[in-house]
């Protein structure tokens, strides 16, 4: 039996395969396709202190090798999340990472505090969504702002804190260092890249929000590069994601220095993608006589 267990901030995961926030709801919908017990963790869609309606439609546009989305963090709010979504996930033998969003520092902190008594294993702080006007990415594109919000959340959080970084910056290592310096227990990257598609027949934007976040295989080389750069820059663990569709893709991220990986848009093209990524990693380990996943984590540098 190959060893796939990994640990982040003292929390152990049976394997490094997680879902990427926003692509998997709270697991309920995809549980008909993926045995959630197999996953290292389910990472839930961003939740705020109150329900958010999100952006107007169209919110989705396909592009070559990927997609743009501008959902705008629609979510039912922390009350419903605690009453409905977390208890659903409690039925499964998997870790739960709760993604937290907000418009202001106070809103982030309010959600973090509400989650303090919950069964959430880790908190992932969304400071990188490109589709909302206030909060989110405003905290993630400036190292001082990122430091401040990370430090504030660390003061209040009962669970380890993962800061989810935006690739829409000049130097992602500067953000990684700021998060680490402020006490973040881990970082996850990358969130989507801001993009645009124009509908040439209608002579307007394909998305009602004009811009959207680019995800899917098209962004994978950028994500691998940024994971690698951050792995060289900080000591805290990294959860890597961006265009992972199969085990081999995930192995790239692990070799670049990620301790765990997130499967995102791939679930849309293949509802069983998360489980198949795990199969693929195990298959890679088998084919290459890797006994312990740690043999390949960060092996390329």
């Amino acid at each position: 039996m190959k060893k796939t267990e990994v640990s982040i901030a003292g929390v152990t995961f049976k394997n490094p395969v997680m879902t990427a926030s926003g692509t998997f709801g709270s697991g309920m919908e995809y549980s008909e396709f993926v045995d959630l017990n197999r996953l290292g963790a389910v990472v839930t869609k961003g939740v705020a202190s109150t329900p958010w309606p999100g952006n107007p439609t169209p919110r989705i546009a396909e592009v070559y090798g990927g997609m743009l989305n501008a959902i705008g963090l629609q979510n039912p709010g922390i009350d419903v999340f605690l009453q409905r979504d977390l208890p659903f996930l409690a039925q499964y033998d998997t870790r739960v990472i709760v993604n937290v969003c907000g418009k202001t520092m106070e809103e982030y902190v309010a959600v973090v505090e509400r989650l303090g008594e919950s069964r959430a294993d880790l908190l992932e702080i969304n400071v990188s969504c490109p589709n909302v006007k206030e909060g989110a990415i405003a905290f993630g594109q400036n190292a001082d702002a990122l430091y401040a919000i990370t430090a504030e959340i660390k003061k209040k959080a009962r669970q380890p804190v993962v800061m989810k970084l935006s690739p829409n910056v000049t130097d992602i290592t500067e953000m990684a260092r700021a998060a680490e310096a402020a006490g973040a227990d881990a970082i996850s990257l990358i969130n989507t890249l801001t993009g645009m598609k124009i509908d040439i027949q209608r002579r307007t934007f394909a998305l009602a929000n004009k811009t959207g976040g680019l995800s899917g295989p098209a962004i994978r080389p950028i994500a691998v590069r940024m994971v690698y750069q951050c792995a060289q820059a900080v000591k805290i663990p990294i959860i890597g994601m961006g265009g992972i569709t199969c085990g081999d893709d995930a192995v790239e991220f692990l070799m670049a220095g990620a301790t765990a990986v997130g499967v995102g848009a791939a679930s849309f093209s293949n509802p069983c993608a998360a489980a198949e990524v795990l199969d693929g990693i195990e298959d890679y380990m088998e084919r290459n006589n890797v006994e312990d996943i740690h043999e390949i984590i960060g092996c390329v540098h």
Partner: protein
Amino acid sequence: MKQKRKAVCRVLSQTEMAPGIFDMQIETDLGAQALAGQFVMVYPKAESTLLPRPISICEAEDTKLRIVYRVAGKGTEEFSGYGPGDQIALMGPLGNGFPLLEADGKRAVLLGGGIGIPPLLQLAKSLPGRQTILAGYRDHRLFLKEDLEKAGDFYAATEDGSAGIRGNVLDALKEYRPDAEILYACGPMPMLRAVKAYAQEREIPAYLSLEERMACGVGACLGCVCTTVKRDGHSHVNNARICTEGPVFEAGEVDI
């Protein structure tokens, strides 16, 4: 029994019924339990295409599924090239479908516009008795006409006046004035808005099948929402997922 699943199936036949409108028969039991108005996600094979395409079910039997769709982009272009024996990946059946019990003891009128016409066939076959079907086409190529004539009293409108009355399906509704007690409609948004207004004026129920860009098709991504009049039970905002709570909504429930 109605649980959705994904399966690789086999194309039985495909014909082009009108320019850009394709009629595909697929060998599968995926639709065995499907309700009229539900849809399937069809997965393109090209690696440049990430997302499945939502396509309404035209007819569903125990071992056969029929979709009639319009080529609108890269994915449907690819599907249109499939022939007998080719593999096709589907997930379904998805969505809620048209409510049938609401038509009990009422005279139902079915309204279809363009590529919104195909799901009316399964609906007409599922409703008891014979319904009035009004369909709006671009021109005289009245795809599915023969099938719909078997299922109900069929009237067409065409934009260019080359068959039926000139105009759209709302013009046909006003021309033929069927004594409707309940409406079922599928078609472009301006048509659905007009159907809603028509139904509200006459104080009769209308069930509208909506369409939106989708990514997952199963309710996880929140890409395909529509604005609802009341707070939605799942989302806790005035938004419902077209793929899951829909695609069919009572006209008064949605702000379109």
